[in-house]
């Protein structure tokens, strides 16, 4: 599904190498987690994959089902089936949440040469999905993320994911700023989307989210590289001993 090979990335503005050769392959139907200390390059990886400005790929490749992601505009990546749940969802005053979701869904459908969804069908779809995530009608009417609590913003990300039904979902620190209940709700939303055709890459600093979204593979990232991979037990090791021991061991 998502295939990353030898990916090296530096900041555009300054001569600073962030990713120093990342290799990663997320198969359809699998959940991979990336853990790592702050500054290890986890979020940069998610931004580069989704096409944010400010980064320069100096080597390596990233493909989604064989298609070269790095050659695509952000909206083309989305239409190809890539989804990034933002660590900090952006507030957009003046754009209603519903308008936003409908524009996004129809833009993607159009790009894939599928028929656009009518207003009525869209409403039906959104209501059903919102209900599962305990998102009320009021929240759908408000401008995108404006005045939303941390938990509401993250639930809104998962709602977008549920509506857009991407093939490959990247969750960037989705647990940050969430209390236990909110985290459970978000995790349930994600788990509901797990199926054989969809891949997940869960980026997180802490192990606790992985209690709820149980990964198939856990990678430890440090200094721009994946330094260790293993099963869910690797996450627990981090929880018990911190990154220091693990990284010391690798070094």
């Amino acid at each position, binding site marked *: 599904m998502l295939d990353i090979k030898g990916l090296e990335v530096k900041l555009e503005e300054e001569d600073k190498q962030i990713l120093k050769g990342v290799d990663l392959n997320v198969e359809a139907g699998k959940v991979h987690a990336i853990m790592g200390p702050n500054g290890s390059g986890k979020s940069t990886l998610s931004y580069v994959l989704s096409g944010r400005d400010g980064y320069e790929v100096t080597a390596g490749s990233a493909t989604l089902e064989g298609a070269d992601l790095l050659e695509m505009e952000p909206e083309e990546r*989305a239409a190809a089936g890539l989804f990034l749940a933002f660590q900090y969802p*952006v507030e*957009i005053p003046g754009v209603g949440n519903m308008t936003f979701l409908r524009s996004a869904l129809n833009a993607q459908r159009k790009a894939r040469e599928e028929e656009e969804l009518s207003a009525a069908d869209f409403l039906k779809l959104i209501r059903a999905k919102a209900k599962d995530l305990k998102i009320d009608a009021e929240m759908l009417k408000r401008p995108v993320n404006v005045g939303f609590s941390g938990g509401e913003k993250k639930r809104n990300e998962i709602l977008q994911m549920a509506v857009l039904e991407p093939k490959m979902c990247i969750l960037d620190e989705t647990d940050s700023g969430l209390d236990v209940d909110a985290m459970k709700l978000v995790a349930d939303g994600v788990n509901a989307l797990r199926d054989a055709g969809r891949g997940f890459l869960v980026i997180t600093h802490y192990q606790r989210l992985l209690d709820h979204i149980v990964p198939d593979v856990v990678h430890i990232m440090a200094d721009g590289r994946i330094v260790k991979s293993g099963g869910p037990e690797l996450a627990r090791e981090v929880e018990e001993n911190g990154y220091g021991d693990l990284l010391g061991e690798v070094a």
Partner: protein
Amino acid sequence: MARAALKDAKQDAARDRVSALSLPGGASWAAEVRQAALGRIEAMGLPHRRDEYWKFTDPATLTQPEAPAAALFDPRETPMFDAVDRLKIVFVDGVFDPDASDDLAMEGVEIERLAEATQKDIHWAKDLYGTLEARGHDPVERPLAAFNTAFATDGVVIRATGRASKPINLVYLHKSERSDAVLHHLVKIEEGGDLTLLESGPAAARFSKGLEVDIADRSAFHHVRIQGRDHERRAVTGYFARLGTESTFKSFTMTVNGVLTRNEMVVELTGDDAIAHVAGAALGDGKDFHHDDTVFVTHDAVNCESRQVFKKVLRNGATGVFQGKILVKPDAQKTDGYQISQSLLLDEDAQFLAKPELEIYADDVACSHGSTSGAIDEDALFYLRARGVSQAEAQNLLTIAFLAEALEEIEDERLADDLRARLTEWLERRIR
């Protein structure tokens, strides 16, 4: 140029300008109104780049004898407000078109043409025509408004004694490339009256419009205007409104295209507990686009609320100007005044010139104002694109979002929705 020399030059220019013109005829009171306005022009002189409120906008093409030609433009779309049940009054290049207009009859509202009202020896319009304009020159002179009062060839006079059953729509068509139209409208809302006025269209190659609105105690006036989208048209408006006790005044203007637009507005809150909201949204594209909102709101009564919300989206060298003032007189306690002017600059060639002013002489008031210029929010743009929305569509969504606060000032939701839909359509056309 010294002050006295400037004044002389302006007065000379005014005399030159009016010498070849003759005042339209009419009953003696109307002739007096026009003659007095002519006197004001000659005393004030024509506007000049050196004038404080004309330093951002060159008045030359508005004051020169010949209107510069403006190519005709076919928007190829359903005319504005077509879906609205309204009473339509049509002017073609400033000339009333009876065939295209509806019957000037509606319950609770008297409607007449200015050209007819000014022929009558006795008419209520006598007390309004030129009156608000004449007192609107202190402290800032507005000679083009006086010019309009003097030389207006027609217009409508409307008196609402009750709640109008539907809006009145003044439709201004532009069919001649060199037309020079001067229209003046008088609106009097009597106590308990409630009227909505819609205006649409370019009117002429050059359009001078005067609008005097007297809103009596406990009455309401709503106004939505879409200025014509002919790229080369020029327009200047002198808009004067006086508000009585517990009255409401809401005006919204949308401007898309046009080489030169100067919208001057003078609002006076003279009765307690009155509310005045004035708003504008402008979309400018290209170095020939110059749009100027010059707004003056005076609080002269207790516990009144005023809002000025002006938003401009500019690109490719377009220029936007905002000169806005809130003046709070010594007795206007409990004033709630708000003013915001913002521009969204879509590229580095566009410019926004703003001059927000507050002048407050009362000590128990809440007044706030702000003015900003900014580019499109890159984070929001990326967020939308990451969800699959194309760059162009994302930019349009953010543009409409930027204008939203101004559009929200339109009270009638259907009109507001209609305008939002039009805006989207116009923005999409620009992409293609």
